[in-house]
């Protein structure tokens, strides 16, 4: 059993560099430049439409819930509001962070900052954390966004289904930032020019949370907290459930996104909440392709990728036994077959010789 040290400031970081895992030589499916240019083309329309729908739904669910309270009918309305706040905002954070959702830059920026607030993710730290996730995807000691660490600890996963650990971490970081300090891991991947902006953001957010808490106390009502803050906990389950599928049970320390990412066909509601990140191999290999063109990219890349999972359930059927095995054997991982038309896997420098 190989011990895994996910600490970015520990020896695993240097080990990953020394073993040649920190490199630009990731595998990319060859795609004709004209086709790729068309796939990368931006438009404001899909993200504007989706953002209007999102905002209207959030207002409608929240107003509806407040109006029918204290009836039990408020419960599904709050849960629906919560999913849009605690899960849809994650994908908005993600896409706008890449700058690909909207063609107009300021629109990406505005939605990004709102989504960061909802998810309690500092806009600058998480920009750089995600940059690192794309550079060193699931490279142990380098990737700050490994959702399921090995050996798998089931209790941790259950707690995170309700955002407990992530929220505690987000609040802890916000408080530390508000006092004008950065954490050690952030110093490894965030450009220091952004530290002052991080401190300012944390102070503004703390003020918003204090005002929200004060409103709840003054009004003797849960409503302010159900609107701001708590949905990060009670609404994140969708983000977590689909997020685990991104890399769960697959290889780590490889240089081919076909080995460490999973593409899963999903229902239209999940795809709206998730902004098509179910096409995850495609996204990692070509991050400049906006979410609304990922289905087209998927068709172009199909010949070179392992078969996608047919549904969320199918993805879990594949992933859960692997996660269960990883409780005891952190080296265990899935290796899916490639179609005959595909180029061979690019395993990277740590590949075992018998693997093709």
């Amino acid at each position, binding site marked *: 059993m190989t011990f895994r040290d996910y600490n970015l400031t520990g020896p695993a970081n240097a080990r990953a560099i020394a073993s040649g895992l920190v490199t*630009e030589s990731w595998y990319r499916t060859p795609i004709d*430049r*004209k086709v*790729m*240019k068309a796939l*990368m083309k*931006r438009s404001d329309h899909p993200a504007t439409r989706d953002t209007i729908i999102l905002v209207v739904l959030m207002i409608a669910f929240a107003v509806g819930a407040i109006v029918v309270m204290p009836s039990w009918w408020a419960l599904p309305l709050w849960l629906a509001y919560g999913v849009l706040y605690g899960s849809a905002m994650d994908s908005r954070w993600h896409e706008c962070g*890449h*700058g*690909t959702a909207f063609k107009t*830059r300021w629109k990406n920026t505005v939605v990004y900052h709102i989504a960061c607030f909802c998810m309690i993710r500092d806009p600058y730290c998480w*920009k*750089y954390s995600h*940059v690192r996730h*794309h*550079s060193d995807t699931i490279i142990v000691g380098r990737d700050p966004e490994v959702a399921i660490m090995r050996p798998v600890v089931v209790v941790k996963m259950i707690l995170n289904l309700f955002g407990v650990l992530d929220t505690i971490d987000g609040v802890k970081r916000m408080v530390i930032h508000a006092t004008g300090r950065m954490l050690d891991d952030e110093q490894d991947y965030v*450009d220091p*020019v*952004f530290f002052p902006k991080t401190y300012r953001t944390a102070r503004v957010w703390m003020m918003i949370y204090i005002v929200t808490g004060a409103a709840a106390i003054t009004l003797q009502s849960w409503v302010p907290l159900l609107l701001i803050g708590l949905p990060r906990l009670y609404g994140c389950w969708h983000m977590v459930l689909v997020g685990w599928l991104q890399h769960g049970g697959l290889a780590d320390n490889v240089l081919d996104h076909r080995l460490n990412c999973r593409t899963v066909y999903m229902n239209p509601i999940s795809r709206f909440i998730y902004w098509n990140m179910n096409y995850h191999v495609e996204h990692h290999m*070509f*991050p*400049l392709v906006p979410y609304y063109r990922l289905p087209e990219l998927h068709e172009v890349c199909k010949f070179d990728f392992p078969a996608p999972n047919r549904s969320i359930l199918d993805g879990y059927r594949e992933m859960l036994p692997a996660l269960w095995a990883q409780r005891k054997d952190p080296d265990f991982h899935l290796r899916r077959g490639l179609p005959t038309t595909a180029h061979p896997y690019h395993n990277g420098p740590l590949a075992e010789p018998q693997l093709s």
Partner: protein
Amino acid sequence: MAQWIDACSVDDVDEEDVIRFDHGDRTFIIVRDHEDNYYCTDGMCTHEDVHLADGLVVEATIECPKHSSIFDCTTGEVETPPACENLCTYPTKVEGDRVFVEI
């Protein structure tokens, strides 16, 4: 000493697009903007060793294919993070149907 090098034909680069241009042991990009102006900059992103020729050209900017830093091709200036360093730019001229760069 810098000299004018025949880099490509004007038609080798589509409108609002980019091609890679290697010269000696160096790599550059030739960018054509939406108004048929041509620019030459370093070919590798200043953030990590990624070829900008795989990126996205919008008007006279190029966006890195890896982490989306945007560079102004007229000045080389970086407009969005994570890159912090500007690109070097090189003079270009069009003569007949050829694009020349001074490198």
